[in-house]
């Protein structure tokens, strides 16, 4: 075991952000939520906006993220995070506001709030964690579940006939005029983590400039819901989810 090291001349190059509390996370081993939670806090740390930020937590596996994020937070009812965030931002235009939602939350029960928040161009950051399943409630089908994907409510695989095609809500909202910056990322590789962090940084900067809605989709895993090991889940994600939901910018600000 080479774990202890008490040598001089070593610089600290990475540690968990100070705005992340010491509370152990309740997420399953290997779950992407943890990485995303951490990245948001890294950015808030670096931008020194801890005292100006209000986060809106979802109902979903990240429902307790307020335990980990050392900022003021509001837990929203299922699907309503963007409406809650709108409420906060409208009466506090000088604050940084972000919402955080799963695919069930944002793209099923909260579809209406999602569309209208973006359409109004609410000046907030919306984070959309797409793991193609309802993690929290035990692995039911989500709007983003792939055709043929087995879940507890599509035990024979999602069928087009019964449930329609997977909903690409991010493409959809990118068509709305209120959407300023729309991009899709993942956290399954170190480099994808780096890119996501940049996107979050940019989004907060745009928010400062009152640009409108920034929307970041993160393709994430759900080892528990998919019934896979964390490693296997990341492979499956790369082979199945990313082809359907390709990574990269979907709408970028036109320079002028």
């Amino acid at each position, binding site marked *: 075991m080479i774990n202890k090291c008490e040598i001089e001349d070593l610089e600290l190059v990475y540690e968990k952000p100070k705005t992340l509390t010491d509370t152990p996370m309740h997420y399953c081993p290997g779950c992407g939520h943890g990485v995303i939670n951490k990245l948001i806090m890294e950015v808030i740390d670096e931008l020194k906006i*801890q*005292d*100006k*930020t*209000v986060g*809106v*937590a979802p*109902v979903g596996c990240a*429902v*307790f993220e*307020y335990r980990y994020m*050392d*900022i*003021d*937070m*509001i*837990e*929203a*009812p299922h699907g*309503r995070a963007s*409406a*809650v*965030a*709108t*409420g*906060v931002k*409208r*009466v*506090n235009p000088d*604050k940084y506001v972000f919402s955080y939602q799963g695919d069930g939350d944002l793209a099923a029960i909260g579809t*209406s*709030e999602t*569309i*209208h928040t973006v359409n109004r161009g609410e000046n907030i950051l919306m984070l959309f964690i797409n793991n193609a399943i309802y993690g929290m409630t035990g692995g039911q089908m989500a709007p983003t579940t792939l055709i043929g994907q087995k879940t507890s409510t599509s035990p024979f695989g999602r069928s087009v006939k019964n449930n329609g095609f997977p909903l690409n809500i991010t493409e959809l909202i990118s068509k709305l005029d209120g959407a300023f910056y729309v991009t899709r990322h993942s956290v399954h590789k170190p480099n994808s983590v780096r890119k996501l962090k940049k996107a979050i940084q940019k989004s907060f900067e745009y928010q400062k400039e009152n640009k409108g809605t920034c929307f970041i989709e993160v393709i994430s895993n759900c080892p528990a819901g998919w019934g896979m090991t964390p490693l296997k889940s990341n492979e499956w994600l790369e082979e199945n989810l990313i082809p359907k939901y390709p990574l990269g910018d979907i709408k970028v600000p036109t320079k002028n």
Partner: protein
Amino acid sequence: MNMKYDNNVKLMKGNEALAEAAIRAEIDGYFGYPITPQSEILEYLSKNFNEEDGVVLQAESEIAAINMVYGAAGSGKRVMTSTSSPGMSLMLEGISYITAAQLPCLLVNVSRGGPGLGTIQPSQADYFQSTKGGGHGDYRLIVLAPNSVQEMADFVFDAIYLAEKYRNPALILSDGTLGQMMEKVRLPEKGSLPKSIPEWAAKGKIKNKERNIIYTSAVDPTVMENLNKELQNKYALLQQEVRYELSQIEDAEILIVAFGLSARICSKAQEMANDNGLSVGLLRPITLYPFPSDTIYKLAQKVQAILVVELSAGQMVEDVKLVVNGSCPVFFHGRMGGEVPTPDEIFFELKKITDKQAVKN
């Protein structure tokens, strides 16, 4: 609260008076969705609320509206929404959350005939929903029932005051007639209701302080039970805020209990009855929650009978019976679905009761 009033007497619709009062109560935001018979509130604010003073946002639905209220109230701002019966039903999940999170805010239900899409005429059939928690879980709203345009304005201040004092949403339960009719009103002045951003608000973490989290969930039911105990203690305290109006209760043989619009109609019937030699008193609950139980109980010991009149199939009458607890007979007269009783009709009920009681005595 130190209410100052405008010297001007105006003629206004109930909805407009309420909206103007909201401006004068210095709300920071209104979020709502149109529905008859209360759309004038949003319309009035859209026209008359200055952008610098706050935000007026037409939400895409009642659900979005109540959740915007939840967010804005959670950040410590003074905010409100208004709707009518079907819209209120849609807000109940959000209201349950707001109550659990102990956030003050102002809710307004200018109610109409139901169930279903119903009619747009006045109704009081949302009494249960308002006073016993239509949403899930053990929560209560502070409920104020105006019966005039003046009270439509005044109760905005009272409701916000109580909501902020107890960190609990307060509901003004009105109806289509009170919302649509014009009466004389003197409006409270700005500054009557001081405001400040509360300590607990989620508005950006203050250095070296605990962060503020607005939440309503727990993994451990013990934690949730403790929240519930806190709520129940608060509701117990709230009983001290009970308000009601009495008229001619000395020597009354029959007591009418009615609130809001039906109390207005009953007061006419009361006049007719007393002119005709009956002796009828009237108790009008102003706060429906807390309910004026003690007073009703005391009066029940003195009167021969109680008549409850509601624009419903009989809802508040249950609360009256609960407190009367058999001390005297409790009768009920109600109209439903948007219909309204006439004073004659109520007078007739009063006579029937007197006759019955006479037979008994």
